[in-house]
């Protein structure tokens, strides 16, 4: 599903943030991505959700070379990937409901067809009462949960979550982890970047460990 071979990444003329990264994610696998702050976790995820091109090496996703995907094919591929951003990236002018429904809306699905699914998911992450609120009035944890709901609403083939439990307490974190595990069980490939030791200890899955720009796969 995802295969990186000797991938390197640098921003502009800066130093290499990622160096000789090699790994392979099989369809339906579950991985943690860890590493100290500034190690390049977000950068690695950005490569995988096609918002960045590698400076060198061969990075393939769904069988296609990331560096060579034509712009016209990007939307189709991105629809297969759900992303939880570290900084949420909710749209401030849309309600929670509309934010969560966004991936379906840009696919031009009819609102009537997804309304109930969206509301159900919103209830599940505990935002039922906040469906018509705008992001600026949500608490940190509420925003994070809305971002997670948006990432999973279209049942993507691959889910990339960047620090998805940084703003919630451990009980809620556990609940959200279970959501990811459920998704994984029905076939979604999951990559979960986190510093949260508690979370790491709750589920045993192979870890991609970044340090000094290099990646080690353990477990």
């Amino acid at each position: 599903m995802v295969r990186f071979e000797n991938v390197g990444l640098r921003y502009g003329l800066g130093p290499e943030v990622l160096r000789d990264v090699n790994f392979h994610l099989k369809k339906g696998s579950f991985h943690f991505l860890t590493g100290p702050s500034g190690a390049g976790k977000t950068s690695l995820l950005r490569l995988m959700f096609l918002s960045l091109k590698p400076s060198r090496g061969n990075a393939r996703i769904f069988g296609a070379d990331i560096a060579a995907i034509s712009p016209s094919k990007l939307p189709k591929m991105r629809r297969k990937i759900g992303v939880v951003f570290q900084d949420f990236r909710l749209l401030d002018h849309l309600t929670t409901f509309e934010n969560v429904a966004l991936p379906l809306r840009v696919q031009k699905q009819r609102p009537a067809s997804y309304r109930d699914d969206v509301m159900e998911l919103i209830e599940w992450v505990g935002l039922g009462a906040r469906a018509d609120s705008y992001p600026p009035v949500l608490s940190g944890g509420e925003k994070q949960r809305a971002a997670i709901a948006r990432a999973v609403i279209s049942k993507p083939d691959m889910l990339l979550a960047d620090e998805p439990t940084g703003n919630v307490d451990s009980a809620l974190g556990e609940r959200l982890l279970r959501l990811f595990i459920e998704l994984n069980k029905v076939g979604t490939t999951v990559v979960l970047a986190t510093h949260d030791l508690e979370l790491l200890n709750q589920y045993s899955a192979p870890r991609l460990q970044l340090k000094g720009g290099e990646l080690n796969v353990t477990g």
Partner: protein
Amino acid sequence: MQARAPKPAKSRYKGRIFSQILPDTGLSGRALTASMSIMCYLACLALGTLIIVSKSVNLWSSNIASEVTVQIRPANGSEMQAAIDKALEVLKATPGVTATTVLDKSDAAELLEPWLGSAKVLEELPIPRLISVEIDPDNPPDYDQLANSISVEVPGGSLDTHRQWQAQITRTAGTFTLSSYGILLLVSIAAVALVIFATRAAMEANRDTIQVLHLAGAENSFIAFQVQRHFLKMGARAGIIGMIGGLASFAALGFATKSDQAGDLAQVGRQLLYGPLAFSPENYALLTIVPLVATLISVTTARLAVVSMLRRVL
């Protein structure tokens, strides 16, 4: 730091209200509409001037072209009536002349009154006589030849074709027409520039939103459509505001013109500016072209700008 509560434009869809995907805020706000409206207003004024000038010039030109004058000065040793008869004879034989009217002595005297005082005095003067000649404008006679025959065959006779006068009008009207076209061009360029800037700025202001849309799998055409729709509304709104302003101005001018007294210079100026015709309903209708063009400029410019910008992001 009070929490902001965005109130975006809404459209109701089967019970649930949906917000616009791109907010109406950003640079493309009221200031843009206002300045776009001003340009549309200017375009209306320019277009109106163009219509009035071209109509007036047509009317005047055809009036002037369809009438020339034969002047017969009292010459030594010739009988005035004989000269007039001779002139009429020549005119009747000329193809393209449709009618002739010999002006009374008093008509001619009237024309001289400003210079020579009351008509009583003039009656005793051997003043020239005038023949007004109507011409078929579609099939005018050869003026040079006609002038020649009249001066040769009619003692003291000469032909006045008002050509200098006509050239003056044409030149003056040409200046107005050219300025109007210039203003129309300038305004259009300014409008295009404004929309390009505005589109860029709106994209810039909504940069994060557009990124999120992209990452959610939105196609460029989908995003471009959202932006475009916005500029469609803006262009139409500004065009209509500008047009209403323009119509109001012309109506006001027409009103002001009617209430003014008649008078030489003012009348000449007014004739030229506002035409011998009232600014008629058809002309008002012609001004509706302004919002249409404004909308078109706005939408196509925004579309091109947006597509070229989207191409440059991954």
